[in-house]
């Protein structure tokens, strides 16, 4: 008689970034793909879902988006499917007051990152899925890749020693598997990961990939469900399929299947303005765009080159946007980073990722700040500045009183700076 093990399955999702989009049309798509994903998980009757970080775009996101997402997650729970999560770099909170913690407390999702640091060693605890027996543990992200400190002190040996079907959840780029366009992104070397897990459920990289390396099981990134940066949309427009993975397993991985969550079509238009003056560019562009099929599509317009005359501001984005919207475009994004005028050359930051721009500015200017504390200088100083900026930029929530908002921001900032809040005692 041949014994056949029962096959289980789990869904591996990451980087949903709910709340990232500020335009209503994109917000709708963002939630639509999230709903598609969870509906499919219910339809496939998965045993559990792993969301490997950045379920939300910030630790306290727009509540309207949260409301809809929570409704869908409640439906998943009602179907008996647990959702396991870790913090991503966006929804991380240094004092565990993120929306993730809120939903965890409400029992809608389960934070599976558990452990403690004893004598300089990080001992992670496995969370055992009650139905499948899969053992799950992992490390959350922190802002600016600071989770590397956790990896450095991780007690890998005890994790490797554990038997059974094991999943390691993380939200970091791995140096050896970074896509080329993310070469400058902070990353963790694979050697800091515990070996011998069956599945490494990754997040943070917005491009899907299944990787293998000696001594490690499948190292998988599902990529973003939709995208949160303009670069993501460029990748989408170039044909990248967005979605998540459903993994069949018993005592080991049997199959990893990609499930697409189609969002919408794209039209990626590139226009080279080199050698033309601003009036020529404006009229040529409008003429060309008239003939483009943009109906029900997100339009990405990239204008680059050096104008022979006129100013870059002569090219009227509003006019272009109106034309495309009138012709049926869902949304229009115009990228003019590569456009310069001969008369008005200026320093351009060749980035379209806001955190990267901020980081670059901090890096360039940290040397000018005169401080004696080493922690506030050079690389460490830049990391601190980034963390602090992320805390300070958090906006006042609807119905949040000004005083509460101030106290929350101060408290988060104090936590980030790791100083005692003397103002509390005054």
């Amino acid at each position: 008689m041949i014994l056949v093990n029962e096959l289980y399955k789990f869904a591996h999702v990451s980087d949903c970034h709910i709340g990232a989009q500020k335009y209503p049309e994109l917000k709708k798509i963002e939630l639509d793909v999230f709903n598609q994903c969870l509906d499919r998980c219910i339809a496939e009757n998965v045993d559990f879902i792993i969301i490997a970080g950045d379920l939300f775009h910030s630790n306290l996101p727009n509540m309207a988006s949260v409301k809809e997402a929570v409704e869908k997650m409640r439906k998943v729970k009602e179907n008996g499917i647990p959702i396991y999560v870790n913090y991503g770099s966006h929804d991380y909170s240094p004092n565990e007051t993120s929306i993730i913690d809120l939903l965890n407390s409400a029992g809608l999702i389960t934070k599976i990152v558990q452990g403690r640091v004893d004598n300089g060693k990080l001992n992670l605890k496995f969370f055992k899925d009650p139905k499948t027996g899969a053992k799950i543990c992992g490390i959350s992200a922190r802002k600016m890749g600071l989770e590397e400190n956790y990896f450095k002190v991780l007690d890998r040996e005890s994790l490797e020693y554990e038997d059974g079907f094991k999943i390691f959840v993380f939200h970091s780029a791995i140096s050896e598997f970074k896509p080329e366009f993310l070469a400058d992104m902070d990353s963790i070397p694979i050697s800091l990961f515990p070996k011998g897990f069956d599945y490494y459920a990754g997040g943070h990289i917005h491009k899907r990939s299944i990787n293998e390396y000696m001594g490690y099981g499948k190292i998988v990134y599902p990529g973003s469900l939709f995208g949160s940066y303009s670069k993501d949309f460029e990748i989408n427009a170039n044909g990248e399929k967005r979605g998540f993975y459903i993994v069949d397993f018993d005592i080991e991985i049997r199959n990893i299947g990609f499930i697409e969550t189609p969002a919408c079509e794209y039209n990626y238009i590139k226009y080279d303005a080199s050698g033309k003056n601003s009036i020529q560019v404006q009229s040529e562009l409008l003429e060309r765009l008239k003939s483009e099929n943009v109906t029900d599509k997100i339009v990405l317009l990239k204008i680059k080159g050096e104008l022979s005359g006129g100013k870059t501001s002569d090219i009227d984005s509003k006019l272009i946007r109106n034309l495309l919207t009138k012709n049926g475009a869902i949304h229009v994004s115009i990228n003019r980073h590569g456009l310069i005028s001969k008369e008005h050359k200026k320093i351009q930051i060749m980035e379209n990722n806001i955190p990267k721009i901020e980081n670059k500015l901090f890096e360039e200017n940290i040397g000018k700040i005169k401080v004696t504390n080493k922690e506030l200088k050079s690389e460490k100083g830049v990391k601190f500045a980034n963390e602090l900026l992320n805390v300070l930029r958090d906006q006042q929530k609807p119905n949040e009183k000004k005083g509460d908002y101030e106290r929350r921001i101060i408290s988060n900032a104090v936590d980030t700076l790791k100083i005692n809040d003397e103002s509390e005692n005054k």
Partner: protein
Amino acid sequence: MDDKFQTIGQIIGGGSSRILIREKDGSKLELGGLLVIDDADDQTLILQINDLEYRSLIPQSMHELASGMNLEGLGTNLEFMEPQLRNYIVSRSKAILHLVDGIPRIPKTLPTYFNSVRHITEKDLKFLTKPKNPLYLGDVRSGSKILNLPIYIDASEAIPHHILIPATTGRGKSNLVKVMLWSLLDLDNFGILVLDPHDEYYGRNELCLKDHPNNKNLVYYSPDAPAGTNTLVINIKSILPDHLKEIINFSSAQNDAIYRYYNTFGNEWIIKIVEGVEIQDISFKTLQVLKRKFDNILGVYFDELGQFQSRNNIFSDTAGKTTIKDVINSLEDGKIVVIDTSRLLGDAEMLVGSIITETLFNRYQRYKLEGSLNEKPKIGVVIEEAPRVLGKEVIEAQGHNIYSTIAREGRKFNIGLIAITQLVSLIPRTILANINTKIILGNEMAQERAEIIGSASQDLSDDNRTIASLDKGEAIVSSIFTKFAVPIQIPLFEEYCSEHIKESEHQNSRSKREDKNIAFI
């Protein structure tokens, strides 16, 4: 009188090329020893001993007779009257430096005849100051006596002007490179690429660079990476035909085929060759030869399941897409990047180094063009067995490669070589002439010594015997950045770094305490 200032000899003749000094009995002058003559008016002459010989006032026949009587037992009590007066040692020394009011100059005059000579002291060499970017090499040595005077060269000048370390096996090349790299880890503005074919610099299982208190400046790549270090995995798509052409000899048919595959398949060209995908006009035989060559050199092939495989796990078709860029970024951040190439065959090792170095060189060329080169750290590339890439035969057969290009032009772009070799004679003179610092260790091969002496920055024509007699760890630094060819004693790396570690122990324990306080969320 202080022993240091005791007279140990006296000038008894010679000329500007060699000064003869009679040794005071018992002074034990040594080959390579540094002597000082205090001349009038605050002028001091520093000499170095090139040769030693016996002299006697008694005719040679008398010596031979006395020796015969002693040996044959005919006159056991025979001895010379006041032998220290009649039999003595004379050193042939060369004036290497003339100090006028403490300022070093090339000697142009002879010291006063019959002047007395003394041992050198640290004070005599006080002009050897610590430069702004100190690269420690060792301590000044006089013969076998070590002075308490560390020798540094300015890394900022010496590295872009290239450094050569010639020596035969067992003379302490690796030890010297370890000492240099350890010293460079203290500096934040130098990127050093170390291609390490013996996996000896990181210190996987022993005390080495990883134990440096400032090891945040160290980046290590290995196919078998210890925790926290980087896995050496290079995407096969990063390799361009030009990279291979510099390292491997291809026939013209193979060469044509390589470019045809590259033009047809872009960066997947190696994968397609290894997969055996045929294209028009390329013979099956050529394809098979290339497949075999890539398997032999890179260890890449397709298995029976049609999967791309790498025998050494270093070349991958999926991973390692940013490895080259990561390495270069680290160098540009002023870090020392050690690449363990011990599992790679010679050609593959050179290929990895060549891809990195060429990309780096192109990037630095661009910086120069943009005017931002001076903001970037200066880069050194450590290559072992340098004639593999800088050898006359290699350059004649395959033309100039990135290493010879750096040797000739790197200085303009702030990139230099730290070349290690046993056989200097294999490197063309034109390249040797561009290497402006040579740290010469012991070498028993006359031909090699002749090449080293011929290309040194100072006149070492009288130092042939001195170089031959250099013991393990002893060296001579000949550089356009030193006032004279400085004899040094390189410390034993383990002792040197242990001392350094001890000094920073307190700080280490504090940072460990900080680590323990890490809060986990």
